């Protein structure tokens, strides 16, 4: 097939001396995907005039193969084709929700012959073609034990894979998508294990065992803990009449669904702060909550605040101490320093006035005495001479 294509291209070159015949600058690459995954094949062709690109699906084995052309929206809208014809032709074939039946050979065909689509004429010119294989595998069955960990102090996570799509080359574990160091192994075993000795409330997350097969197989195990709540800064400062910002964060899984703020009075009583009242504003995200206090008052707003985060397994609190600086707090050090500067300058000037007389004359005399005397003698001589002449 390919040899024929090459021969055709060669003869095309000979035939069309002036125009540039179509040629592939990018050929589609083979894919290996799992069921329900998606993939794309990309093809780029140059030629003058710009060639047309088509996608064909080859079903069956030689010599009984059947060719089916693919169009945008084929296979119940799972096939999309995006083509551009600017300067050169590019075409991308998108396959979504892959099924086992999508496995097969896909062909990118291109031709810029003006008579390429005329079926009545004996097709002198064949299309140039480039092929790529798409293999769709069944997702491997991975048995996770336990399927999820809820509110436990320790756990051992197990994964067993049955019917891997290809031989297992190794495995590792991830937490929230990041590879966990030290869990990588090149063992071809279909069983892998990860131990969590102590599950604190920051150790929760979506863990996954990953088997290095072609393509990769993995299974998630959720580890859920009660919430973890921590103030971003335990001691916050604010300026009088300014805006105060108090922040609490959470690194637990699942993240808190509800956040509430309280102001702690001296008698340990809590007073709930609600959003939108008076000067308070609360902005919450799953893992962060912010309390804004507008126009801080030094008498009433100073003190301890408590943030509480709640998820399906319980709640946790964090405490922040807010200090309100009076507007004049910095004024005293400033005045102190200015006073010190003035005092020092006064001392220096007084000292200078007292020492002024002796310093200058010494310098002058030592430096220029000899020269001065010479000038004096010259001067005197000249004067004497002139007076005499007059």
């Amino acid at each position, binding site marked *: 097939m390919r040899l024929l294509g090459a021969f055709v291209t060669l003869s095309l070159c000979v035939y069309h001396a002036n125009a540039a015949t179509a040629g592939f600058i990018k050929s589609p690459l083979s894919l290996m995907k799992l069921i329900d995954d998606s993939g794309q094949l990309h093809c780029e062709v140059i030629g003058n005039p710009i060639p047309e690109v088509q996608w064909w699906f080859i079903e069956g084995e030689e010599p009984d193969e059947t060719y089916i052309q693919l169009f945008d929206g084929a296979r119940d809208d799972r096939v999309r084709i995006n083509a551009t014809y600017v300067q050169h032709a590019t075409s991308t074939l998108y396959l979504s929700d892959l099924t086992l039946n999508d496995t097969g050979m896909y062909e990118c065909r291109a031709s810029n012959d003006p008579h390429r689509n005329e079926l009545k004429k004996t097709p002198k010119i064949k299309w140039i073609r480039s092929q790529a294989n798409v293999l769709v595998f069944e997702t491997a069955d991975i048995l996770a034990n336990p399927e999820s960990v809820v509110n436990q102090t320790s756990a051992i996570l197990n994964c067993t894979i049955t019917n891997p799509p290809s031989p297992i080359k190794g495995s590792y574990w991830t937490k929230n998508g990041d590879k966990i160091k030290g869990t990588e192994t090149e063992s071809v075993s279909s069983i892998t294990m990860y131990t969590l000795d102590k599950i604190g409330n920051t150790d929760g997350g979506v863990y996954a065992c990953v088997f290095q097969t072609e393509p990769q197989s993995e299974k998630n195990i959720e580890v859920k803990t009660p919430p973890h709540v921590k103030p971003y800064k335990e001691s916050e400062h604010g300026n009088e009449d300014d805006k105060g910002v108090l922040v609490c964060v959470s690194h637990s899984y699942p993240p808190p669904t509800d956040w509430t703020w309280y102001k702690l009075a001296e008698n340990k009583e809590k007073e709930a702060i609600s959003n939108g009242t008076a000067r308070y504003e609360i902005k919450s995200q799953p893992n962060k909550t912010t309390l804004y206090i507008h126009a801080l008052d030094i008498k009433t707003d100073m003190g301890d605040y408590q943030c509480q985060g709640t998820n399906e397994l319980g709640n946790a609190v964090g405490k922040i101490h807010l200090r309100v600086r009076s507007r004049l707090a910095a004024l005293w050090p*400033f005045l102190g320093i200015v006073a010190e500067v003035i005092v020092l300058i006064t001392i220096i000037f007084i000292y200078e006035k007292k020492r002024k007389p002796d310093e200058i004359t010494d310098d002058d005399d030592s430096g220029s005495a000899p020269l001065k005397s010479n000038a004096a003698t010259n001067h005197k*001589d000249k004067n004497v*001479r002139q007076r005499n002449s007059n």
Partner: protein
Amino acid sequence: MPSPAPTNLDYTPPDGGWGWAVVFGSFISIGFSYAFPKSLTIYYKEIQRYFLSSYSEIAWVSSIMLASMYAGGPVSSILVNRYGSRPVVMTGGVMVGIGMVASSFATSITHLYICVGVIGGFGLAFNLQPALTIIGKYFQVKRPMANGLAMAGSPVFLSTLAPLNQFLCDSFGWRGSFLILGGFVMNCCVAGALMRPIRVKPRMSLDPTANGAKNDKEVSDEKTSTKSPVEKTGCADRVNKFIDLSLFRHRGYLIYLVGNVIMFFGFFAPVVFLALYAKHMQVDEYSAALLLSIFALVDMFARPITGLVANTKWIRPRIQYFFSLSVAYNGLCHILCPFATGYGGLVVYAVFFGVAFGMVCALLFEVLTDLVGPQRFSSAVGLATIIECAPVLLGPPISGALVDIFDDYSYMYYACGVMMLVGGIFLLIMNYYNYKWLAQEETQRRQLEEEKGAMEELKEMGSSAENETDETLA
């Protein structure tokens, strides 16, 4: 044997006594000028949060401050030429103080640009130039030592201001801290008060009642001419009274300018990138910060020690070579830096770089005074800062671009190293010729003087003989 440049001073500088108090004053002024803009970066995060602005908008404050500092150089020189160092430094201190106090009430970033950037920058420029100038007026024999000590102010102040600013920021917030810093920086006025001007008693030869005899005029011109010879009247003449533009015809000065412009392209960038390079080499934040502290500590001691070394009788006459070699040594450090492996290698580099940086900084203004003389130093340094501001401001961004393009710090270090080596070698070669030509000119001048002296003696002998005959006749 290279001869030292003429001092052109009418008096012998005291070389001690109150001079050391002046050095202390300069220490404070120089320390504030160099360290203050760099230490303000600690507040940027809080200001950014307050005004909800991007980092580049905040970074403009530093750039404007530095630019104003350089632009203010010539203005500062003119004022020093006219009024002397003390009033200019005190004015500068007050300006920075007012600028900082005003900025503590700022309601937008633009206010910060103006108050901290423009006013603060100009105020610091009014501190830097006079502080450098007055050392030349007070010291001749021990000048390199004095310069080295004064320049040590920069690293000392940087090491103290950095933690102080952190503490102020935590305790008072940025507004309160700016207010307090405004007061703190007024200590420059104290430094200015220390810079007692040297008062020169007016000479008899300047006495205009002399009968316009030729000899009188010659004598007065030789001894008291501190400005450049004023022959033509007009605009150029008036400009020259304020700032000495004839410096651009001074051979040594031109050599200094060209060498420095080349050198400054690669001078500051390695300092800026030291911590970043360390982090790039997988060093944690604290150790990277420690590198900078090591660098600053070594720098602090290298400057006075370099001053001391430069003062010795072997180095002083050849100080230009010493300077060129330190510049070249800097370049060598940078070229070898990419070969440093691991944290230990970086520490070694930081130590050597600290020594190199300190050497160049300590000698930077000493060699300028050595070339043009203390009298013209003020104008020289003003013109130099405004010309050097281009490579100083462009150097770090260009190096940053190099790092971005090649994604590798080695090329930036090579580039900086090469720039400094080229600058150093240029200075070395040109100064060798300059010394030679200066020696030739010196011998020619001596010959001319001897001939003149001989002729004058003959004239005097002739005139005294006439006098005797006149008197005997009368």
